[in-house]
């Protein structure tokens, strides 16, 4: 269910706080030095699994591929009991119906990218139709992209209005707003885009499409987490965070969890408020869980292909 709304009273986005880049880098480096003991590690790994939006966003996606992914979402590694499922499957709008059918009543959500993902370079009506189509096909969550060109040209009102229009088209579906931070050039801009998205009604803010490098660096994610914190303190509304792209191993994922815990607190440490957008992360986490369980380092030969 949608948890944020379009805010009537908004600040002047030109005056969004600036970000101390060196300070962010040093703070982020600290998160990577935390020692995680075995028991917490196991719990952390299972939490990571449960936060993954298992993703396939390729031109060559077929219904078969999507069905396979949905099966994987429900049966991550059947030889190991007590594993959680992933949080959601993330697909293109044309695959939503197929995914919905394949997931049935498993409780796993279907997220659909939208608004002419990944470039967002399409007319307004088409973006609205794109979103409605996904929602009508049963998408529980919509991952929209912002118009980076307009944003960089300084047309913040355009970007705000566009996000708000998509928010309306979403109905009760939760809206994730992709900032595509790899194209925003500086952390100041990331902060500003985060503010715009949250005031325009984003239920989640998300770093990247996964099509552009760099994607979800810890610096960018940290900047966005700080924006979420400030927004929460000001409005009392919780907004979720989804780093996506480039998080392909367990260690990095655990570092992200440490960062969330120490920035926003334990209230954000569940899949309602934090997600990983990833395709290959799940297998690495599974291999780590098996390593913790058996004591042996694992081989990709014994895990499903993704």
């Amino acid at each position, binding site marked *: 269910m949608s948890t944020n709304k379009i805010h009537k009273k908004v600040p002047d986005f030109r005056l969004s706080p600036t970000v101390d880049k060196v300070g962010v880098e040093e703070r982020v480096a600290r998160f990577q030095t935390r020692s995680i003991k075995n028991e917490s590690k196991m719990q952390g790994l299972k939490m990571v699994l449960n936060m993954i939006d298992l993703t396939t966003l390729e031109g060559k996606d077929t219904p078969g591929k999507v069905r396979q992914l949905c099966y994987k979402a429900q049966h991550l590694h059947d030889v190991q009991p007590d594993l959680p499922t992933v949080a959601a499957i993330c697909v293109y709008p044309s695959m939503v119906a197929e995914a919905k059918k394949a997931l049935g009543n498993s409780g796993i959500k279907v997220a659909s990218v939208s608004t002419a993902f990944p470039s967002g370079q399409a007319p307004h009506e088409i973006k609205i139709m794109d979103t409605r189509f996904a929602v009508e096909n049963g998408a529980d969550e919509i991952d929209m992209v912002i118009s980076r060109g307009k944003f960089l040209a300084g047309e913040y009102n355009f970007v705000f209005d566009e996000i708000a229009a998509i928010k309306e088209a979403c109905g009760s579906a939760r809206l994730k707003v992709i900032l595509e931070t790899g194209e925003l050039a500086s952390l100041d801009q990331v902060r500003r885009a985060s503010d715009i998205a949250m005031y325009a009604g984003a239920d989640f803010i998300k770093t990247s499409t996964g099509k552009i490098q760099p994607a979800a660096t810890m610096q960018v994610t940290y900047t966005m987490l700080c924006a979420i914190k400030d927004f929460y303190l000001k409005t009392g509304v919780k907004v979720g965070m989804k780093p996506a792209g480039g998080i392909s191993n367990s260690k990095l994922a655990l570092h992200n969890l440490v960062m969330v815990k120490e920035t926003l607190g334990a209230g954000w440490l569940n899949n309602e408020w934090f997600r990983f957008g990833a395709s290959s992360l799940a297998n690495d986490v599974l291999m780590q869980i098996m390593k913790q369980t058996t004591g042996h380092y*694992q081989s990709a030969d014994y895990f499903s292909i993704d």
Partner: protein
Amino acid sequence: MERLEILKTYKIFIGGQFPRTESGRYYSPMNKKGEALANMCLSSKKDHRNAVVAARKAFGSWSERTAFNRGQILYRIAEMLEGRKSQFVEELVKQGATAPKATAEVDLAIDRCVYYAGWCDKYQQVFSSVNPVASSHFNFSALEPMGVVGIIAPQTNSLIGLVSTILPVIAGGNSCVVLAAEQLPLCAITFAEVLATSDLPGGVVNILTGSEKELIDAFHAHMDINAVLYAGENDEHARKLEEGADCNVKRIIRYVGGLTKTTDESPYYINDFQEVKTTWHPIEHVGGATSSY
């Protein structure tokens, strides 16, 4: 004023890079007079794990190279070894060999590289076969590399055993993680420098120094190692490998005697780390004169 000699720091070789051990631990092998030879990395299980990851990453493209190209690269190793002959002789003497013996060992190592370079594009013809079958099929068997091979080099010599175990394994398209002789490790890391400068893609050979006793379990317990070559002398360790290999049914091969003799080279050493794949290809006729293949 007398010049202060710069002593070399020996590091380990993983993925084409020369990192220090992540554990920060070192040990000093001694010569016969009880003098420390150098500070060597005492590799940990994590270093071993990193090496396996590097080897797995390198395996795909190395195994897909043409056999001829692998031969060229192995020949290049021989060339580079020849160019640094005096350094190897010096190290062998430091570790207790006489000068003539050391020279003979280096010469043999170079010749062995050339020997296996030559076999790269020939062992397949020798070991593969067309098999007679009782149906209309063209049935043939060919060799494929096993994958990542763990190698525990002979503990009784520094260079020749290392070369004699690594070369046949990579000639056959495998990648490997090698544990050098614990007390005679100098040549192993210098050999790694040869490999790093001879067109061999990073990660095909990874060389660790350290304790066999500490790392033996890592070799048999790692699910991503497909075979282990044990050339050490410790029967207890050999037995441990055999017992522990059940986790992914890896192949364990043992060589004894240090592989120091001129006759310790053969294409069968390549064959030891190959899988046989047999294909049944339907054809119209089986007989020679009318067959359709």
